[in-house]
């Protein structure tokens, strides 16, 4: 019998998170700080609008690129909050979560052998999606001493004549790192000089602390070479609705729509109606959740430092990324032992790239009460290992 599988898929490793998930789910009464989704439920007025759309019988396909009113609201939202200018008819594609947008952007842009720069630690799907699109991922290892920001030198060092796309994963999952306007300006220079394209995953754009998120697409000359990916999961606590979007130049979006059309048809209709309500009347929800995360973030960073785990201050997303090297354990050992001894699940930094070794991803998408319990456990655990 012939091998039923493609060479590419057999080369792709299962997600490191998956492996850890299997261990955690077998443990009874474990508590977790390992979740990459908001603890808030979707605000009721948004859910209610979804329900109402079902009652009205809005149960059919929408046009491939998404509901006209949703695309209009997306453009008005991006203009209002991030100074980005896009036209609803040609430059927006509504997708099944940001994940689909990442996948089809890469598939639309890559030819076999094209290289894609992937800064790590970062979200688990970039590398597999590049490979599935026939491209070659080139990892850029971000450094703790740079607060896990991407630098011009790192990009320059990784560029070859085959480099086509740079992935910009900021605000970053798992480190919580962000890029300021000045830091982005340096990257913009390289991108334009070397004629690269950018896929900017801005799914955490509403969750920056102390400064507003700046999109790389806002820089002069960048709109035509950037696909911005965003969605509703993190900002409006709508993970289960599976709704995201990509905006970019018409010539790329047009072809992404083709892939989306043949593979997916359209994003879920109910979710699209709910999302219209989110964008029209949800600014208050954004603020409420942002403030709650910000309080927990400060609380967690200071408490971890007091416990003796060095932790750079993350200004984005809802993760902290403390360094655990002083315990002498690897990230995986630490996570496994913490789970075994204290029944507390956190994610080893290595799940987001090998340069995450020595770090843990701790999520603060949890109530302060839960964080307090978890911190007590971490403190007890760390004390035992640093005597």
């Amino acid at each position, binding site marked *: 019998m012939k091998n039923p599988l493609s060479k590419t898929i057999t080369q792709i490793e299962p997600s490191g998170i998956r492996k850890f*998930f299997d261990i*955690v*789910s077998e443990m009874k009464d474990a508590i977790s700080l390992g*979740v*990459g989704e908001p603890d808030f439920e979707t605000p009721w007025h948004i859910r209610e609008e979804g329900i109402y759309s079902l009652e009205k019988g809005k149960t059919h396909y929408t046009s491939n690129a998404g509901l006209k009113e949703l695309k209009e609201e997306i453009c008005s939202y991006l203009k209002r909050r991030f100074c980005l200018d896009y036209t609803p008819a040609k430059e927006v594609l509504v997708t099944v979560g940001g994940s689909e947008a990442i996948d089809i952007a890469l598939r639309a842009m890559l030819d076999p052998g094209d290289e894609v720069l992937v800064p790590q630690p970062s*979200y688990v799907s970039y590398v597999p999606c590049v490979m599935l699109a026939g491209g070659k991922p080139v990892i850029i290892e971000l450094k703790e001493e740079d607060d896990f920001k991407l630098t011009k030198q790192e990009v320059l060092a990784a560029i070859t004549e085959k480099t086509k796309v740079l992935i910009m994963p900021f605000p970053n999952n798992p480190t919580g790192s962000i890029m300021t306007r000045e830091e982005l300006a340096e990257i913009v220079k390289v991108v334009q000089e070397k004629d690269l394209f950018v896929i900017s995953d801005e799914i955490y754009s509403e969750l920056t602390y102390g400064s507003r998120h700046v999109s790389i697409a806002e820089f002069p000359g960048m709109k035509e070479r950037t696909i911005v990916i965003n969605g509703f999961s993190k900002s409006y606590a709508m993970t289960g609705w599976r709704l995201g979007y990509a905006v970019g130049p018409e010539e790329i979006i047009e072809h992404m729509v083709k892939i989306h059309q043949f593979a997916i048809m359209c994003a879920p209709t109910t979710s699209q109606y709910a999302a219209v309500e989110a964008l029209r009347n949800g600014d208050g929800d954004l603020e409420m959740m942002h403030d709650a995360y910000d309080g927990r973030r400060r*609380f967690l960073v*200071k408490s971890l430092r007091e416990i003796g785990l060095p932790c750079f201050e993350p200004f984005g997303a809802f993760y902290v990324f403390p360094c655990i090297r002083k315990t002498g354990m690897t990230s995986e050992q630490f996570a496994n032992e913490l789970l075994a001894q204290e029944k507390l*699940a956190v994610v080893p930094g290595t799940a987001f790239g090998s340069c995450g070794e020595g770090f843990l991803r701790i999520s603060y998408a949890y109530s302060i009460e839960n964080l*307090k319990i978890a911190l007590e456990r971490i403190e007890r655990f760390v004390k035992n290992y640093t005597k």
Partner: protein
Amino acid sequence: MEGKKMEREQLKEAILKRIDKNAKLTAKELSLMLGCEEEEVATAVAEMEADSVICGYPTLIDWDKTNRERVTALIEVKVTPQRGQGFDRIAERIYKFDEVESVYLMSGGFDLTVIIDGKSMREVANFVSGKLAPMEAILSTATHFVLKKYKEHGITLVGEVEDERMLITP
């Protein structure tokens, strides 16, 4: 000086926002969450207590889950306002009773909302017929008993809230 005052006001507002739903947060915890010194929080809270901005720290109890019988009634009251004192004097005569939980002056079809907590329906009935209704300025009362409390002070009292999320997600 002006900037300092502004900062203090912002800190107070931030503290209130957080303790509004959780009075158990300590000054230390609040200081960690707000990125300031513990002492600043303690001073701000003390000032707000002195200024009666913070008037108390009651506990939200769902008495239905205890053995104690308790009845809540909402009474719509129509009154004759008194010259020179408006509704304040009559409101005061009502809110001074221990049984009275809350009193609000209302716009619309009646004047005062009076919320009573009693041990039994009889106790509430006795209060309304014996104390409240006979007051001179009171024209009429309409008593509504609470059958079930679903939500109070922004907190849902019915149903268990469970974390539906998977334990680990990317």
